[in-house]
């Protein structure tokens, strides 16, 4: 770290020895600065995940005092074959929610950010960004509370939809119909995060030099061509990163589904993986089984994270 000309980069033997001493002292400090974090992660990240892997091989139930019997992969086989546990349904609910929220979020935030970026001056952009971003400031619990009231049978949701569709007095069963309930949870997410992802895209758009567009316009490219031939390819790194971030985000959802479930909505359509782990492990005390579910979620997360790392490293654009 010390360049030539730095007071510590001496040449002769005596200085070399002193230099080594300082270098060693600094190495110890450098490592020392990391020790608290490493201890923290050892106890609160690595130990729990190893413990989860270990426990997933045992038939552990908290209430029983005797040491749990070793059952090998039985918990994994159970959650995938026993329909009564409902883990397959959880995987399905998570997949529907994740993709159902992911595609609208990424596509709409991309479209809106490009339109905003290309058509308005920066100060106006800022105003729109702030208005779109405000829902993201609220906590998921508050966001869900507001929307649950809107989706009440007598609430605004029915009234607005009836006004648009000209069907007075119809109850659209927002929270009782399974597909509508799924739509409700997705709606809460879309509302809360659309502004957040637009802001991410705007930042990405800011890295594309304006000269590229000017050159294209001079060559007679249309607005649409500019979008498909310049914006999309040059924005590819941002798009792929935002996509993975959004998928990870959606896969980890808990609060929204938990709130709907607690307010009396049917559990099955919205029993996403994290909610399933919670009910299996905490409510029903089937620790071993819940840990097996956790490991499946962990595996999904590793795959997504590796994809993210690959994207960070290989997809950069040079101008």
């Amino acid at each position: 770290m010390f360049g030539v000309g730095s007071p510590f980069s001496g040449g002769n033997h005596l200085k070399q020895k002193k230099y080594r001493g300082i270098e060693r002292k600094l190495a110890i400090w450098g490592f020392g600065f990391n020790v608290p974090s490493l201890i923290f992660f050892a106890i609160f990240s690595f130990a729990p995940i190893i413990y989860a892997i270990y426990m997933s091989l045992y038939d552990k139930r908290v209430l029983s005092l005797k040491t749990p019997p070793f059952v090998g992969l039985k918990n994994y086989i159970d959650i995938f074959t026993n329909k009564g546990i409902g883990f397959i349904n959880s995987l399905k609910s998570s997949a529907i929610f994740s993709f159902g929220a992911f595609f609208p979020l990424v596509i709409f935030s991309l479209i809106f950010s490009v339109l905003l970026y290309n058509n308005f001056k920066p100060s106006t952009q800022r105003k729109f960004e702030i208005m779109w971003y405000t829902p993201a400031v609220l906590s998921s619990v508050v966001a869900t509370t507001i929307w649950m009231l809107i989706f009440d049978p007598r609430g605004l949701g029915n009234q607005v939809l009836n006004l648009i569709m000209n069907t007075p007095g119809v109850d659209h069963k927002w929270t009782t119909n399974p597909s509508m309930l799924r739509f409700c949870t997705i709606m809460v997410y879309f509302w809360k995060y659309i502004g957040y992802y637009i802001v991410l895209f705007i930042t990405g758009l800011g890295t594309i030099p304006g000269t590229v567009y000017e050159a294209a316009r001079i060559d007679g490219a249309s607005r649409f061509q500019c979008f498909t031939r310049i914006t999309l390819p040059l924005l590819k790194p941002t798009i792929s990163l935002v996509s993975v971030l959004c998928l990870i985000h959606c896969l980890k959802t808990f609060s929204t589904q938990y709130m709907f479930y607690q307010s009396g909505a049917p559990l099955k359509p919205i029993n996403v993986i994290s909610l399933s782990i919670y009910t299996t492990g905490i409510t029903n005390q089937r620790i071993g089984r819940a840990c097996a579910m956790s490991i499946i979620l962990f595996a999904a997360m590793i795959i997504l994270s590796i994809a993210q790392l690959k994207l960070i490293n290989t997809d950069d654009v040079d101008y």
Partner: protein
Amino acid sequence: MSKEIKTPGYIVYKIFVLVLMVLLVLLTITPLVFMVCASFMTSKQILAIPFSWIPNPVQFSNFYKAVAGTLNTWTFPRNMLNSFIVSIAVTLSTLLLAGMSGYGLAKFRFKGKNFVFITIMSTMMIPFEAIMIPMYMISQKLHLMNSYMGLIIPYLVSAFGIFQMRQYLLTFPGEYLDAARVDGMGELGIFLKLVMPNSAPVLATLAITTFRSQWDNLLWPLLVVQDAKLKTVPLYITSFSEEKHADEGALMAVALLSSLPMLIAFFALSKYFIGGSEVYESRKG
């Protein structure tokens, strides 16, 4: 963008874009306005058909009910305080520990540095949802249940925070550090008096991210806290909405009161909320 010729098609396009933008504003803002209006209404008014946006009569008692709770237990102020205590404690420790780690990784050379960095980064792949059951059991063993410590300790530092600090400090001029060393400053002194004060922008962004995620946290407090006095705001809202005779107006008043700190912070410091976008920061690395 360059000046364009104002053909009718161009004007139609501009109007179309503006309409789209305003429609999205309507979607994002309407539920917020609904929350504010509804917090001044009786449940009857909130669920009236057709809905009228202006509260009549204005129902200030909702806020009394929100703060006092339906059973007059007055736990809400205490729960707000808990949320502040936990969020501030987690934020401070994250700033300090992430600052230390990030500084160590960015500005020092030591054996196994890459390994340490990769080890820390790999914890980002472990979702909290996957380790909540073991964490619950570990916390029971460590007697962290039903305590502030139990709420704070599992979040003392985050890998993302360390990453952000490291990326920022990579560009910190090493000459300053050497000069301070020559002047006889200790390593801790350099970190606390030179590095940290000069990292204000990244610290502000990191502080906001951390504070928000704690303010929003429902899952872990749900597991670790049973005592009503130790509950945080998200838990108060869930238990409030579960109570059978809680009325909707008071519920919206709770929602509004609990969001006010974040909303005020957002409108005052929107630069740090919107400017510090994670993806862009990680791309630059």
